[in-house]
C-alpha cells in the first residue's frame, strides 16, 4: 500500500516548503458496533463449580454436532448415549473430550507429601506418548481408541464419533467430526480501500528500549507524521487501530515483589506503574488521530480469567479524554464497517499449543474455528469464569476476520468453509520482538504485514526502513 504511493511522490520530500500545508482527512468510520456484550461480566460470583460450563457447552453444541454427523455419515445412523451403548454396534456418540496427560501440571501431585516432589519444571509442550483420550457425556465416560489423533486433540473439545464399543469396554473410533464453521452473515464491506491496523505485544516496561523506536515509528505512520504526501494519504485510509493484548511486558509482572511481604515492598513502586504511564502517552498520540480499541492481554493489569474485562479508564487520564479510545474485552468481537472481527490476545491459542501436537499458530487458529469453540481448554488449563447459563466462547456466527495476538510470527490465510463462509485468519506477531504489525484491507479482506526497524548495534550503516 505505502510503497506505490511513496515512489510517486518521493520528490515531494526534497521540495521547498509550500505556502499551504496539504491536509488529509482520515476516512470516517461509517458503522461500528461493539458486539462483545456477552463477554462482559456483571457481578461476579465464584461460588460455583465448573460443571455448569461443561454441561451447557455440551447441551448447546450437541444439536450442531448431530446435524453435522448426519450430513457426514448419513441420516440413518444410530445416535446413542454412552449408557445405551451395546457391544459391536456401529453408532454415533457425542460428548466432551478429556485427555489424561501424564505431564499435565497437577496441584495435587505438587503438594502430595508422600511423593516429596519438587514442582515440575515448565515445558513448552506437555504432550506425551502415553496420553489417553476419554469421551464424557452427562452420565458416563469411555476410553477411546482407533482413528483419532490423540496428540492433536485437547481437553474440552466437543465432537461426534462414529464407531463401536469393544468387549473390553473401549470405544473403537472409525471416524470423527466437529461442529465446523457456523453460518456467516453477508459481508457489507466498504467500496473504497479502508484499512484496520492490528498490533499486539507492545511490551512496555520491558526494560530494553529496543522496540521504542519501532513503536514511535508506528505511531508516526498512523498519525501521518511520517513520509511524503503519498504515504500520508495512505495513512489517512487507516480507519481503526486494534491493540490486541500484552501492552505491558512480562517483566512488569515481577515475581519477587509479588511474593515478598508487604512491609518490604512498601516504598517500591510496581513496574507496571511506569509502563502504564508510557502506554497512556502512546495512546494519547494515537487516539488524538484515530479510533483505538485496546484489548487486555496476559500481562496486563486486569483480571486473569477469561474473558478478561477492559482495562480501567482511570489508568489513562491523558488518553481517556478522547472518545476515540475504546477499552474492550478479551476476546473482542465487533462489526467494523460491515466486517465482523473476532479475536483474542492469544491466550487460547497459546494454551492449546502447550497441550497439543500442533506447532503452527495459524493451524491452531483454524482448528478452533473448525471445532466451533474459541478456547476448548478453558476452564481445564486456562483460567475461565464459572459461567452457568451459557458458554460464551461457542461460535454463534462466523466472523469475517478472525485474529489472535502475540503469535511468534505473522501469518495469514483465507479459509473457505463448507457452507461457503469466507474467513481471513490472521496471527499478529509480538511487536516487541518482531516490530511487525498487520494492515487489513476491509474492501477485499487482504492482509499485509508492515514492519519497522531502527538502528541496531551491529549494523554498519544506520538505516531506517519501513518495509512491507
Amino acid at each position: 500500500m505505502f510503497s506505490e504511493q511513496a515512489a510517486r511522490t518521493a520528490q515531494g520530500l526534497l521540495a521547498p516548503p509550500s505556502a499551504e500545508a496539504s491536509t488529509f482527512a482520515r476516512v470516517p468510520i461509517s458503522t461500528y458496533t461493539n458486539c462483545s456484550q456477552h463477554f462482559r461480566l456483571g457481578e461476579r460470583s465464584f461460588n460455583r463449580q465448573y460443571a455448569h460450563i461443561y454441561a451447557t457447552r455440551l447441551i448447546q453444541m450437541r444439536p450442531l454436532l448431530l446435524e453435522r454427523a448426519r450430513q457426514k455419515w448419513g441420516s440413518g445412523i444410530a445416535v446413542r448415549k454412552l449408557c445405551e451403548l451395546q457391544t459391536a454396534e456401529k453408532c454415533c456418540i457425542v460428548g466432551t473430550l478429556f485427555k489424561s496427560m501424564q505431564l499435565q501440571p497437577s496441584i495435587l501431585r505438587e503438594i502430595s507429601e508422600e511423593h516429596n516432589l519438587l514442582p515440575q519444571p515448565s515445558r513448552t509442550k506437555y504432550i506425551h506418548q502415553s496420553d489417553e483420550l476419554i469421551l464424557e457425556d452427562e452420565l458416563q465416560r469411555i476410553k477411546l481408541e482407533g482413528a483419532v489423533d490423540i496428540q492433536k486433540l485437547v481437553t474440552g473439545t466437543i465432537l461426534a464419533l462414529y464407531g463401536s464399543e469393544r468387549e473390553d469396554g473401549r470405544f473403537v473410533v472409525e471416524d470423527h467430526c466437529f461442529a465446523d464453521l457456523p453460518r456467516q452473515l453477508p459481508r457489507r464491506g466498504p467500496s473504497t480501500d479502508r484499512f484496520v491496523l492490528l498490533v499486539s505485544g507492545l511490551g512496555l516496561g520491558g526494560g530494553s528500549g529496543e522496540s521504542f523506536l519501532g513503536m514511535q515509528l508506528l505511531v508516526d505512520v498512523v498519525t501521518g507524521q511520517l513520509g511524503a504526501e503519498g504515504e500520508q494519504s495512505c495513512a489517512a485510509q487507516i480507519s481503526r487501530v486494534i491493540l490486541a493484548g500484552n501492552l505491558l511486558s512480562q517483566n512488569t509482572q515481577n515475581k519477587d515483589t509479588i511474593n515478598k511481604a508487604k512491609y518490604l515492598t512498601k516504598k517500591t513502586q510496581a513496574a507496571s506503574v511506569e509502563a502504564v504511564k508510557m502506554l497512556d502517552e502512546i495512546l494519547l498520540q494515537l487516539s488524538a488521530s484515530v479510533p483505538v480499541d485496546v484489548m487486555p492481554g496476559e500481562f496486563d493489569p486486569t483480571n486473569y480469567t477469561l474473558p478478561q474485562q477492559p482495562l480501567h479508564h482511570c489508568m489513562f487520564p491523558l488518553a481517556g479524554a478522547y472518545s476515540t479510545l475504546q477499552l474492550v474485552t478479551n476476546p473482542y468481537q465487533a462489526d467494523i464497517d460491515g466486517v465482523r472481527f473476532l479475536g483474542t490476545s492469544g491466550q487460547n491459542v497459546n494454551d492449546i499449543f502447550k497441550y497439543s501436537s500442533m506447532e503452527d499458530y495459524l493451524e491452531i487458529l483454524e482448528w478452533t474455528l473448525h471445532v466451533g469453540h474459541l478456547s476448548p481448554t478453558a476452564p481445564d488449563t486456562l483460567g475461565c469464569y464459572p459461567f452457568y447459563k451459557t458458554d460464551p466462547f461457542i461460535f454463534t456466527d462466523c466472523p469475517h476476520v478472525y485474529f489472535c495476538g502475540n503469535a511468534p510470527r505473522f501469518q495469514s490465510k483465507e479459509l473457505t468453509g463448507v457452507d461457503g463462509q469466507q474467513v481471513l485468519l490472521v496471527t499478529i506477531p509480538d511487536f516487541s520482538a518482531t516490530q511487525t504489525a498487520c494492515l487489513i484491507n476491509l474492501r477485499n479482506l487482504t492482509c499485509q504485514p508492515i514492519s519497522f526497524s531502527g538502528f541496531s548495534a551491529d549494523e554498519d550503516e544506520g538505516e531506517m526502513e519501513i518495509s512491507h
Partner: protein
Amino acid sequence: MVCDPVEDAVWTQLGAMGRKRLITDSFQVVKRQRRDPDTKEGSLQPEAVPVPAESPTDSSLHPAQLEMLKQFDLSWEYGPCTGITRLQRWERAESLGLSPPLMVRETLLEHEGDPSFMHCLWRDYPL
C-alpha cells in the same frame, strides 16, 4: 453403687443404656451460613447422613411441593444443580430448549424468598 474405681470408670463409659458418648454431645457443631435462625438444629455426626434443616412449619405445609422440587434437582437432564438457585436452573433449562416442567416455576414463584424453596437440595454444603 459400686465403689471400685475401675468398675466405676467402665460404668460411666457405657452410660445408662450402653450409648456411646460423642464429642458432639459436649461441643455442638454450628453450621456456617445459617439462613433460618429458628430451625431446630441437630448435632452433626460425621459418619451419619445429616438431616436437611428445614423450617418445621413450611415442610409440614408443603411436603408434596418440596418433594417435586427435590425431584427437579435430582433430574440430570437439566444440568448440575449445585451453586445456583432453582429458578436460575429452571430458566437455564428453558433457554437451552429442554422444556422443564412449568409447575416447578410456578411453585418457585409462589414461595419466592423462602430459602428452602429457592435453593437446591445441597444448599447447606459449601461449593
